[in-house]
């Protein structure tokens, strides 16, 4: 069954969610995204790129749609998923006080949705104050706990030194989850989810442009590894990747096991296996890591040792 990936965008009021969404909606990424937002008035989208506008919905020229949550997120999501033309991705802008885990649970009870990495915007100029506010701390903690990827915002207000200090202060929250700085909503979208322009394919291994486009937004370095794997059970791949967890940002391969060919994908803590008879297995595997450490041998040795079915 075709599953629509659902990205939850969480973060406090003023943390930059709307700015990021505006960036996502207006980029030429080739993905027909439907965003569900609190209020599209504040998105302030250029009229030039709006193709039509109704009471609770705006359609953009690039195929993206933007609709409002209204009173009932579940119903809105149901409406979006009941349309003839399904979105290729849904992004929900969670309200500043919502627990993203509540929204994530929707994907566990609906076969047509799959949970994509949860994005959390963190206002670097306000986070420390907010996280010490007894009225807000527990709500913020839930959002940080649920996140898969952090986007640190408003670093331009802090300046370089203070940004570095903030990274150090925020680091204990990371638990090996990646973070990127984003100024005015600018971020390489391929870091957040797959786009037409920038899908991670085996052919992308060591693709210098991928690294280049990513670099300016990263304080951590990005390295990719690739190689061929013998027939390997999908569960084994999952287990191995989980062991390497802290280092791995994304992974992808077209692999085989006893049941035939499958595409394996990994992004921010989640493995995804899709089987198809029409696949031509290359047994090529690529891993994108967030640390500049030479793991090539370790990684593939790791797989080879355990890959006997």
């Amino acid at each position, binding site marked *: 069954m075709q599953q629509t990936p659902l990205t939850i965008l969480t973060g406090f009021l003023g943390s930059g969610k709307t700015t990021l969404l505006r960036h996502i909606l207006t980029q030429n990424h080739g993905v027909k995204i439907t965003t569900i937002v609190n209020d599209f008035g504040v998105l302030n989208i250029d009229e030039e790129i709006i193709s039509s506008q109704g009471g609770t919905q705006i359609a953009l020229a690039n195929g993206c749609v933007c609709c409002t949550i209204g009173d009932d997120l579940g119903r809105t999501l149901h409406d979006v998923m009941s349309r003839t033309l399904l979105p290729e991705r849904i992004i929900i802008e969670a309200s*500043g*006080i919502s627990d993203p885990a509540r929204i994530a649970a929707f994907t*566990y*009870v609906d076969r047509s949705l799959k949970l994509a990495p949860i994005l959390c915007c963190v206002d670097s100029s306000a986070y420390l104050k907010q996280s010490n506010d007894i009225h*807000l701390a527990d709500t913020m903690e839930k959002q940080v706990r649920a996140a898969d990827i952090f986007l640190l915002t408003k670093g331009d207000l802090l300046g370089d030194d203070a940004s570095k200090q903030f990274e150090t202060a925020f680091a204990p929250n990371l638990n090996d989850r990646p973070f990127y700085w984003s100024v005015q909503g600018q971020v390489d979208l391929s870091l957040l989810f797959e786009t037409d322009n920038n899908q991670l394919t085996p052919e992308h291994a060591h693709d210098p442009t991928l690294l280049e486009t990513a670099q300016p937004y990263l304080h951590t370095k990005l390295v990719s590894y690739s190689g061929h794997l013998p027939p390997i059970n999908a569960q084994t791949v999952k287990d191995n990747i989980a062991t390497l967890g802290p280092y791995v940002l994304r992974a992808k391969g077209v692999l085989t096991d006893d049941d035939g060919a499958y595409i394996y994908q990994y992004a921010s803590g989640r493995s995804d296996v899709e089987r198809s008879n029409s696949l031509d297995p290359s047994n090529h595997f690529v891993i994108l890591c967030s640390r500049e450490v030479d793991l090539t041998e370790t990684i593939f040795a790791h797989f080879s040792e355990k890959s006997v079915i």
Partner: protein
Amino acid sequence: MITIFHARSILTMNPGQDRATHVAVRDGKILAVGMKEDAAKWIEAWPADTKLDERFADQVLMPGFVEGHSHLMEGLMWDYIYVGFYDRMGPDGKVWSGLKTIEAVTTRLKEFDDARDDKSAPIIAWGFDPIFFGDRRLNRDDLDAVSTQCPALILHSSLHIVNTNSFIINEAGVDANNNSEFIRRNDDGQPTGEFLGQVGLFMAMRATGLDLLAAFSKPHVLENFASVAQRAGVTTATDLANSLPEDAVKGLCAATERREFPVRLVIAYSGNAAEAEDGIKRLKEVAPLQNDKLRMNIVKLVGDGSIQGFSARLKWPGYENGSPNGLWYIEPDRLNKLILDYNKAGIQIHVHANGDETIDAVLNAFEAALSAHSHPDHRHTLQHCQMADRAQFKRMKALGLGVNLFSNHIFYWGDAHIEQTMGRDRANRLDDAGAALAEGIPLAIHSDAPVTAIGPLFTAWCAVNRVTSTGQRLGGDAQRISVDEALEAITLGAAYSLKMDSEIGSIEIGKLADFAVLSHNPKDEEPEKLKDISVVATVVGGHVFMNDTSSD
């Protein structure tokens, strides 16, 4: 034409004339109030077609009750099977007995299924509250025993949890993977059938097309709501809140324009999901559509969740049983902004604030908003306000705020509050009407139907007696209020909270002819009996609505 209603006695709630037996009505309004001698003079002086209506000569008239915090959702719930713990009267006057065990719940549903022809249609029930059943949770096996051939779903009284049978779970493909705190699981990791938040309703909608709220704007929902309210003696009720979409407004206008519609409705705009600018605009748009039985002129904001659902925001030391603190339903910063903007625009604001942390946040917001833009008669009101302490009541007084307390909680969840949510110390001050009046704060009390049954005399009984369902008393004499004060809270007090006290809430010349007709005089009865007084009829704008209750 003039009609003179004769009653055994009339509680006017007008301190200038507290004794009367006759009230004259013309054009839906009160023309005169007096004793038998006065009525004799009226008949002599007034036109020949003046009619003396004697049908309530053995009964007691009060101003029609005002339910200051209810939801039209009550009218929708009666489309489904009631499985609550306490007896409850439906729109047709039938009393559904409360169910004291989970087996009784499944038995009622099974009987429903056995009696019907189409066994594939969904079975939907409402009003269930797990807090009364200790460790025994309702699970999918219970509902599978009802049916495995159709979707079966029970909506909890909190409206925030549902139980389903395996039919829905299997259709949705929920399995042992994907750990989520919103999907309860057994030791094997399999879902137990209990789903928290909006997950269960979403699942049922996606997997089986079941949509509980689809009928919400159908005319019968309004009719059912109005009937339930009317049977309880209510002549003005509220819907807190409503996002006022086009079709809902049309339905409201059509229903209330009919003379036969038995209640006046006050609808609050639901402010949480929209910017103040949009809310102000919408209220302006609908203002010309109001009629004498329909007001749409206030805004409602929701600060937190419920105490019994552990989703209210509590101050230190938090929940008695160690549950994590509850949820903001709105960012405190956004609450500040919305209250500032609506207050600036001169729109009356009602804010749901259950826990004491939320009450603080709301008081801070009002303090800032009223310092920026002063409105001497703003009548902004805290709704529920269940955990307020004396210091908070004093701040309300200083800011000129009113309060509408959720007194029914004392009976329904008082025991649970002592044992699980807040402990005895704080439960003693739960819905502290005594403190509100002692501080001179305008007071109303409410049911929050469908969360609890609509019934102002019962609500008054709760505020007067302060006893829980097991007979424990919350607090001391300082927290209790007198019968007179409670009767004022369910009439003039609630009317004041809606800025309608110049039109309703007492029986005096010039006001609308809205009455509750009672079997007994509440002032003559023991305070413990207040809830047992029957409502015989109501009068709305001079039009009589008889209760044909046939429950006994």
